[in-house]
């Protein structure tokens, strides 16, 4: 029998016992729905985590320090990263050199300093961090009260909400107001310094020049108040409470803790950075760029290993979710076997008639097989739709909960096309396997016995 005729007969037979077959198909649909809902949750959470982490800039970045002042990132210093006598300073030349490496999109210093902040007569001391313009797309500023900096050189500030609360009982009302930064500016020592002895001693020791620390003030307009800490993620780098555009922060020339070290080691004439962040095109470029930077004589650190661990965790997570989802589908497949075995008993005479009319064993088996396949197809299709609805409901419920907690909503369930197609395909395969035994049993029926059956 031709496939089209077989399909028509299968659908026709299923329509005749519509209630029982619908319930069996519904069983398959529920099984598929549970599988899809579980996996969509896994995929959704993985996608969410990947997006957040990728946008956070932690996984497409290499953190570079001079081997002189390598502070590590929780790792004990190895002999390789231990200070070397001839190691290079992380100065402007090094920054330019790093920015010319292939696959590097951006190189920026970490400008972080502790300073005084004055607002409406209140004075507080806090950590300030310069943010590159690229952090605008990190996702960390979603749901922020106010807006991101209007330009990379704007004299504007974003406050972390806990700090904003210390300035005002209504943090949101701070947006648009001005605060004043008190900071120590590092500047070159003027040539007509009054203390000639100091100058003489410097010349005598072979360390020309010097530094001066000058107290300064800067008025900044508050443009946003953020609940999370956009600088969090890497040990030692987070914890800032006031954020400025990176270029604005650079132009302040705030004295850094290693300025004194630089001065003592005789490199005070060329300011150096504590650390530079090198952004690359994509996380896969990190190893190559990291190796190239090490070749230049700097210490590096990246979170690439952490992404590998994350992928492993999510793979195991997906596997378990898939297994739990498959259990429901296995139960549904037993329903298919039961329905088709019952159908064989009921349709024994029909099988006999078909065989008397010239149907082969294969025709009869294929008919039952096709009926199982059609149930799998419809069950798979409706199951994917149901699974998507369950996932959407979970996202909806989670978003409502998060909004009540004053947090931005997230999409925790995601049904990609490959999951939808795989689930339908899996439902068909499971149904066909379930239909195998009834089909073989139907095919083997003796036509004489089947025709005698009442």
């Amino acid at each position, binding site marked *: *029998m031709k496939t089209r005729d077989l399909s028509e007969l299968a659908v026709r037979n299923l329509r005749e016992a519509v209630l029982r077959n619908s319930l069996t198909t519904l069983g398959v649909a529920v099984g598929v729905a549970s599988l899809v809902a579980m996996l969509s949750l896994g995929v959704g959470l993985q996608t969410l985590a990947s997006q957040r982490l990728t946008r956070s800039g932690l996984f497409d970045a290499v953190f570079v320090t001079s081997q002189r002042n390598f502070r590590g990132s929780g790792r004990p210093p190895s002999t390789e990263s231990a200070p070397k006598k001839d190691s290079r300073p992380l100065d402007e030349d090094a920054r330019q050199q790093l920015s010319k490496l292939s696959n590097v999109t951006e190189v920026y210093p970490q400008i972080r300093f502790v300073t005084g902040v004055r607002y409406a007569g209140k004075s507080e001391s806090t950590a300030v961090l310069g943010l590159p313009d690229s952090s605008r797309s990190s996702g960390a500023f979603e749901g922020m009260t106010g807006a991101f900096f209007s330009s990379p050189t704007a004299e504007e500030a974003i406050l972390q909400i806990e700090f904003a609360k210390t300035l005002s009982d209504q943090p949101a009302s701070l947006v648009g107001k001005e605060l004043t930064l008190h900071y120590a500016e590092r500047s070159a020592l003027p040539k007509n310094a009054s203390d000639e002895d100091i100058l003489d001693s410097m010349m005598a020791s072979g360390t020309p020049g010097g530094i001066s620390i000058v107290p300064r003030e800067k008025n900044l307009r508050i443009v946003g108040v953020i609940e999370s800490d956009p600088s969090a993620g890497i040990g030692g780098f987070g914890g800032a409470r006031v954020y400025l555009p990176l270029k604005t922060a650079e132009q302040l020339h705030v004295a850094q803790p290693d300025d004194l070290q630089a001065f003592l080691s005789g490199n005070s004439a060329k300011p150096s950075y504590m650390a530079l962040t090198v952004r690359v095109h994509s996380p896969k470029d990190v190893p190559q760029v990291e190796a190239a930077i090490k070749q230049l004589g700097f210490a590096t650190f990246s979170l690439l290993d952490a992404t590998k661990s994350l992928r492993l965790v999510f793979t195991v997570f997906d596997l378990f979710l898939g297994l739990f989802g498959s259990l429901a589908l296995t139960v549904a497949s037993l329903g298919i076997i039961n329905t088709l075995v019952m159908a064989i008993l009921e349709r024994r005479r029909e099988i006999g008639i078909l*065989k008397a*009319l*010239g149907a*082969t*064993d294969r025709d009869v088996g294929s008919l039952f097989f096709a009926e199982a396949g059609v149930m799998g197809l419809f069950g798979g299709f409706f199951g994917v739709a149901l699974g998507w609805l369950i996932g959407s409901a979970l996202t909806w419920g989670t978003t409502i909960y998060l909004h009540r907690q004053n947090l931005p909503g997230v999409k925790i369930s995601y049904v990609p096309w490959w999951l939808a197609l795989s689930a339908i395909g899996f439902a068909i395969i499971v149904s066909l396997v379930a239909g195998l035994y009834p089909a073989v049993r139907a095919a083997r029926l003796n*036509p*004489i016995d089947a*025709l005698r059956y009442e």
Partner: protein
Amino acid sequence: MPIATTFLQAESVSREYRLGETIIRAVDAVSLTVEKGEFIALLGSSGSGKSTLLSMMAGLDRPTSGAIRVQEHNLAELAADDLARYRRETVGMVFQSFNLLPRMTLEENVELPLRLAEVHRQERASRVGEALERVGLGARRKHRPSELSGGEQQRGALARALVNRPAILFADEPTGNLDSVNGEQILLLLREIQDSLGMTIIMVTHERPLAEKFANRIALLSDGRLVSNGAHH
């Protein structure tokens, strides 16, 4: 007078069934020759083995011993698929209980052998119409079996048996579930088909008057044995 051609030959055909330790011989060494275009009636009482013999000749069952030759092929030795093809392409069958599929319309029932034979869809409609017209049910094509009388159902079953243009028609007690009027009409139809199409017909019946009236020859069976090979009418 045309020269008779053998269409089917049963050679010492036996069929045994095992019921526990007991062996029941339903058909016992029956030899029978059926000529092409002949209308033969297998007559016998209940349990005489006539239906079993018919089933073996129709390719629904296999003999325990002996041979059934149809056009040089021994049905006893054919593979299952070849036997199915024989039923599909050479044989038409009519049963006592009509055996129309209740879920299908008459038209769909008649179309079923054409689906199995993979006849092209465009050709099917005309052949189904032709078969239904032949049995006088052209107007009832959309009706389900439950909406037809017994006589109409049997005529529908006859249309289904004829639609594949078989060379031989097997009828197992075709009038068993019909009243005498409808029974005679069915046999008249069989006779007309035999005359117009030159079809070979083997009919099982236990009604001697009908057999004598419509069949060319009567083969009498008793306890699985062929008692009389009969004479041509």
